[in-house]
């Protein structure tokens, strides 16, 4: 089997952010331990099903994985290393909230084998951080970077948001500026979507959330691309930038149709042409695992046609595009022919273009990618 990526979901946080619709819950400290045990059991379940899998990337996402006490984290990492074959140069990422980073933890994380930390900064203004419901300040972020650097982390990511209600262009440029002054190798810059069932969605419905001008939001995106490029960041995915060689290898697996295994509540897997999802509720997840029942709640077989369509959609997220030659070799020319008319239409609308055999989104296409993706469904 191809080497896989492993995603481990930690559905806990100190406090829910106002825009967050991820499966993450505050106030569950009481089940941290049993959750950790359940995750270890699930890893064993998977190992006994698939054998000794070779793993290239591991990603602890959340929630706030950095909230987990080191012994629990350690149990999970050790189980992983025992049951799977981690490659020498495996990328092992931990998502961390700047409000949870201390010297002791940083040292322990490094010790455990983590080599990449992804910090949720979101914005450089305490005023905005507070509005968003974040638990940290700008200062805590700066200190976190210093600590992590000092303890040997030389592959750091920061998540930032633009198009945030109340955020000015100056705020945004200041956020970018802060990152350019710190030892950051990777930046995920997301356009904020107000998702259903979040406090901000409700506020927006009541008309109480500041209006975000679409032109301003796009301006922020263009400025980010330009500024980051100037400082040596490679824009490699719609929302992702990195110094050369610091692309997130785990996330690239998602966009290039490679297999990955999700462990934990609400985790998703894509392996052997099947997409599966685990139960969302962490307590029920623990229960199922303890009862030796599969935590999977849905599975979907992806046929070649669908797989090709996903490869086109996901592949176009990557700025360098998707290799039509590779797709043709993998799926056959007839399968690809079905999409040719759509590609031509999108070329005419100036949303797609070819660079050699690489099909790419144009600059306009980056703003209207849904219009392109719809064509490949």
């Amino acid at each position, binding site marked *: 089997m191809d080497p896989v990526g492993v995603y481990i979901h930690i559905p806990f946080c100190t406090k829910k952010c106002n825009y967050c619709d991820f499966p993450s819950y505050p106030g569950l400290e009481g089940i941290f331990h049993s959750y950790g045990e359940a995750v270890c059991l699930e890893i064993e379940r998977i190992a006994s099903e698939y054998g000794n899998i070779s793993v290239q990337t591991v990603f602890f996402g959340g929630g706030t994985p950095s909230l987990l006490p080191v012994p629990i984290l350690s149990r999970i990492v050790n189980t992983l290393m025992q049951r799977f074959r981690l490659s020498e140069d495996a990328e092992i990422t931990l998502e961390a909230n700047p409000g949870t980073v201390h010297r002791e933890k940083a040292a322990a994380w490094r010790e455990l084998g983590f080599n990449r930390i992804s910090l949720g900064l979101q914005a450089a203004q305490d005023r905005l951080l507070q509005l968003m419901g974040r638990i940290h300040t700008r200062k805590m972020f700066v200190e976190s970077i210093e600590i992590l650097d000092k303890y040997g982390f030389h592959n750091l990511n920061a998540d930032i948001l633009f198009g945030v209600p109340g955020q000015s262009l100056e705020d945004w440029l200041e956020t970018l500026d802060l990152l350019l002054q710190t030892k950051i190798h990777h930046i995920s810059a997301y356009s904020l979507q107000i998702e259903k069932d979040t406090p901000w969605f409700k506020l927006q419905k009541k008309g109480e959330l500041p209006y975000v001008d679409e032109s301003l939001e796009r301006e922020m995106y263009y400025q980010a691309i330009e500024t980051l490029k100037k400082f040596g960041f490679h824009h490699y995915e719609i929302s992702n930038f990195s110094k050369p060689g610091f692309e997130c290898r785990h996330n690239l697996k998602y966009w290039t149709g490679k297999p990955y295994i999700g462990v934990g509540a609400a985790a998703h897997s894509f392996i052997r042409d099947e997409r599966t999802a685990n139960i969302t509720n962490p307590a029920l997840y623990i229960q199922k695992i303890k009862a030796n029942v599969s935590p999977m709640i849905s599975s979907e077989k992806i046929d070649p046609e669908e797989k090709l369509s996903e490869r086109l959609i*996901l592949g176009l997220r990557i700025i360098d595009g998707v290799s039509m030659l590779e797709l043709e070799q993998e799926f056959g020319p007839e399968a690809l022919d079905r999409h040719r008319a759509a590609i031509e239409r999108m070329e005419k609308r100036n949303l797609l273009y070819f660079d050699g055999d690489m099909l790419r989104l144009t600059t306009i296409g980056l703003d209207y*990618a849904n219009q392109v993706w719809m064509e490949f*469904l």
Partner: protein
Amino acid sequence: MPDTRQKRIRNFCIIAHIDHGKSTLADRLLEKTGVLTAREMEEQVLDTMDLERERGITIKAQAARLIYRAQDGNEYILNLIDTPGHVDFNYEVSRSIAACEGAVLVVDASQGIEAQTLGNVYLALEHNLEILPVINKIDLPGARPDEIKQEVEDVIGLDCSEAPLISAKNGVNIESVLENIVKVIPPPTGDEEAPLRALIFDSLYDNYKGVITHVRIMEGSVRAGQEILMMNTKKKFIVTEVGYFRPGGLIPAETLISGDVGFICASIKNVQDTQVGDTITLASNPAKAPLPGYKKAVPMVFCGIYPADGAKYTDLRDALEKLQLNDASLLFEAETSAALGFGFRCGFLGLLHMEIIQERLEREFNLDLVTTAPSVIYRVIKTDGEVLQIDNPANLPDISTIEMMEEPLVKASIMTPPEYVGSIMELCQERRGEYIGMEYIESNRAVLAYDMPLNEIIYDFFDALKSRSKGYASFDYELKGYKKSELVKLDIRLNGELVDALSFIVHESKAYSRGRRMAEKLKDTIPRQMFEIPIQACIGTKIIARETVRAYRKDVLAKCYGGDITRKKKLLEKQKEGKKRMRHVGNVELPQEAFMSVLKLDT
């Protein structure tokens, strides 16, 4: 003895306002006469179509033969002829009435008489029908039977002292209705020996028998094997079968004789050959003259009907053909639109008829439709003397070749409580109505008479009337004729491209306000797209209103990782579904509602 035969026949119809209980009473009469067992009894047998049931109206006249043993010990044949209940089918109602000697007038014990009912009562009186008033729904808390009786006496001048007080729903006093039908309504008296004259009051297409013609034999008789002649359409057929109606089916008979209500089958393939109101006679021994009152059904309202999915064009054609088998007044012919592709220009008796057909197409044939705003037939006199009938605004010739234009005018009567007279008169003025007069039919009901251009009614007049009278006003109209008028064609351009299906013809004085509202409405209906879309309302090359749909700046899912893929695909699929339903005009995506937006400019 021939006389005795006819003396035991009563031919009658039921006149009632929508939801005053006509169908329920018909059911009870059928039950009491034992034509159906309780088990066979389907609720509201006469309303066979779901749609009619839902709307509480009947579209097609039908009939049923009831056998009733009266208190005098004799067995009577009661022929109940059902009448359609709406202004659009006025002519069909008049033919059903002409087939009867009497009418049961059902009046709601709390609501009293409504405008439409009154119209039909006058129609019945014109045909010398004996009217039997019945007060229904006496069991309801708001019932005030004595007042209502008085109202019927005051308004129509009918003696109501003997009027049965009933509850059709609960089966109260149904017997007295039957007794009164026998006692009050006169039997038919036609000459059995005279040449055949049979009045067609409805027809129904059947896959096996062809057209089943519904007739009332006024004089003479008819049997299978005879050659019949349609006196107005001049078509001839050989009779294959005659008989009577029973609920849900037919009863074959040897002959139909003067006084009978029944059916004639003659391998007729097309309902157009059996026009309602025509007279059937025998080819070998024809009557001297047809029965009076025949009118050819004339569609007055037209609109374009297109399949939402272009591939369903033939399905739509098949569906229209099927509906036309039973509806001689539905017209359609193929047309094409640059915006909507292949479809049909359809003609209807009126707005309700149009709505019913649209709904039946969508419901019974499972078609997704795009319909254009309704139009009337304009008469265009060209400078070279040629006269054109224009039912599609897109076909209007170049303005420089037009000498003058005429539009259809209707006589409208509006019944309303007096407190709304002011605002309704205002509405009628706004719609270019010419005030004819006002009458109080009683202290709390006024009837306003106006001459109005039909094209002012076909947009949203019903809705406007209802909203200005809190739903109390009712409305009736008939075609009066044509009148010279200053009309212009208003075009809509999207991103510079003319959208033919959005063009409409409007009075000069209304062009600016309509153009402006139309542009505003379209601005709200058209979703933002990747580029800015100018909306222009124009008369010829002159732009009279302009709006802009701003471009959206982004349409991209910012984030997509492992767990999101299925969800994000679903979002894209939903978006694609919405896009698929769009029409394309040049590079503009136009939602289907946009084509109907011209309809609702006032609301």
